[in-house]
């Protein structure tokens, strides 16, 4: 295993204790930022580090910070801890086991954009983690690391938690902001983007937990040090959440650019005995299915290389599929997820996923013909590029790639059905 920058509790087990965290130079970077650095310097270091958003979009973090409108105040930082992508469980481990590094990252980001209030939006299921974080925030106040006039300066910072209540869509940053304002979690039309019009209509930076947790060490050790991990374009380390048909599922922190083979076979112990690896979903349920060829397995997991094999890195939640799994069953699963989680705002996603649930239910049950597979393909293609937000666009990734790359599985499922099934177009059921 390479050096751990995020899952440091695996080498320093008591790092969730503030004293231990500080003995390991914790809150030195924040102290330095507040007492002796200009916000712009901090933004420049993060830019130079090449850090990109770890929630899935991979947007350059420093650039996002630099977009904050300096003519409108106050500013806010919101940590996105709504981790809900099927197959993703990395932010949870960070917040449970290395919470102070995360909180310090929030604090540094807040200072960099001169926000005096930061919120952590956690999915409602993370109720216990929110309680723990609140205790840690109280400890930071007691230690003089949060509150007014920090380190004798004019700068002050409060961090609050805010619990969601079960809605995948709130991981989309503008839906998250709506939810924080006490509204339905539905995405906003963009532009304007949050750095100009965010929480309560004020300039806001929304960053994923893992992104923020990467920041303290970048400030402490510098951009060049950070760039020594990973590849030219995809710098640093990343937590890969490995799940599915694999012997040792779990979180693995590796430099960006490590291969699927290394993750799945060296670290994850490969697929269960007697089975063969069939497909990989590199970005959870939102992912296209990659055929697990030798070439695919040797593909570096970074923001540039994964698209070259027909998927994207996303939040790096790698789901392994072995040869016991039928792809029609799998896409039926992912479509049920998206149908349940569609916020209902735009028609292609809301109605399209409803249609796809019915079609994939029938296909999976062996009650459909090949024409239904074509109809499914047609519905999915019509959803493509017409949704209000990325969630709708993600819903069809597994469907279209599944049909295209694993047609045999669909032929088998439809072989038993009559060649022509009467489909009432008004009532697909």
């Amino acid at each position, binding site marked *: 295993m390479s050096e751990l920058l995020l899952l440091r509790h695996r080498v320093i087990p008591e790092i969730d204790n503030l004293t231990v965290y500080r003995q390991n130079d914790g809150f030195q970077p924040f102290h330095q930022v507040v007492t002796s650095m200009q916000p712009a310097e901090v933004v420049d270091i993060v830019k130079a580090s090449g850090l990109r958003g770890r929630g899935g979009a991979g947007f350059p973090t420093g650039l996002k910070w630099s977009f904050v409108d300096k003519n409108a105040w106050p500013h806010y930082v919101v940590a996105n801890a709504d981790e809900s992508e099927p197959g993703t469980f990395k932010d*949870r481990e960070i917040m449970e086991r290395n919470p102070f590094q995360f909180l310090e990252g929030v604090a540094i980001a807040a200072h960099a954009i001169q926000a005096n209030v930061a919120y952590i939006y956690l999915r409602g299921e993370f109720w*216990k983690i929110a309680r723990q974080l609140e205790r840690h925030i109280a400890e930071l106040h007691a230690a003089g690391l949060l509150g007014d006039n920090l380190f004798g300066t004019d700068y002050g910072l409060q961090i609050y938690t805010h619990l969601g209540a*079960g809605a995948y869509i709130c991981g989309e940053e503008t839906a998250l902001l709506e939810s924080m304002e006490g509204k*339905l979690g539905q995405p906003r039309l963009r532009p304007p983007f949050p750095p100009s019009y965010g929480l309560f209509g004020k300039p806001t930076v929304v960053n994923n937990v893992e992104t923020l947790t990467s920041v303290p060490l970048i400030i402490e050790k510098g951009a060049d040090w950070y760039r020594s991990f990973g590849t030219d374009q995809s710098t640093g380390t990343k937590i890969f959440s490995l*799940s599915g048909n694999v012997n040792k599922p*779990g979180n693995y922190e590796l430099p960006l650019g490590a291969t699927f083979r290394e993750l799945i076979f060296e670290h994850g112990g490969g697929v269960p005995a007697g089975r063969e690896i069939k497909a990989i979903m590199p970005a959870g349920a939102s992912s296209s299915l990659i055929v697990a060829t030798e070439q695919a397995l040797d593909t570096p997991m970074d923001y540039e290389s994964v698209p070259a094999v027909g998927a994207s890195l996303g939040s790096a939640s790698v789901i392994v*599929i072995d040869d016991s799994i039928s792809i029609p069953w799998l896409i039926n699963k992912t479509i049920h997820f998206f149908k349940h989680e569609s916020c209902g705002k735009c028609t292609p996603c809301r109605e399209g996923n409803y249609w796809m649930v019915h079609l994939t239910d029938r296909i999976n049950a062996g009650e459909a013909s090949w024409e239904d597979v074509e109809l499914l393909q047609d519905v999915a293609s019509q959803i493509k590029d017409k949704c209000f937000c990325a969630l709708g666009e993600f819903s069809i990734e597994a469907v279209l790639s599944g049909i295209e790359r694993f047609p045999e599985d669909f032929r088998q499922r439809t072989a038993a059905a009559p060649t022509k099934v009467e489909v009432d177009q008004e009532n697909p059921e």
Partner: protein
Amino acid sequence: MNTLAEKYFDDIQAVLEKYPADQKQSAVMPLLYMAQREYGYVTKQAMQEIAEILDMSATEVASLVGFYSLYYDEEGGKYRVQVCTDLSCALRGAEEFLEKFCENLGIQVGETTPDGLVTVEEVKCLAGCDKAPMFQVQTGEGLTYYENQTEESALKQVERWRIQEDVG
């Protein structure tokens, strides 16, 4: 009478302090959790009370209860056992686990045991994919995760609740 406003006065003030004074509506989700703690689920009366406290309409509050899956507008078992059967969990046997668990309790998914102790629900990803089969248990007091479960361990847990409730 506004029960929530009276009984949870300090808690509500503490929640409101988190947000700018002109953004009271941000407190609606925390207040819905309080209502659930008080009443077991979000009653019509609670929606009205929250609406009054936050200067919203009861309809707006009700729409949020409908939108977010952790809020309930009807009574369920004291322990809501929510089993994830999403893709990663299903690949580790979560569907079979759910089926057998329900079979043993003598109920269908979505139903409550006759003694009102347990409601079993099927839910979407809970970020516990590497430790499936897993479920969360929601009570008025909060949420707890139970991971790396077997049929036996889950049934034992139900037995512990049963004893706990009998004693209580």
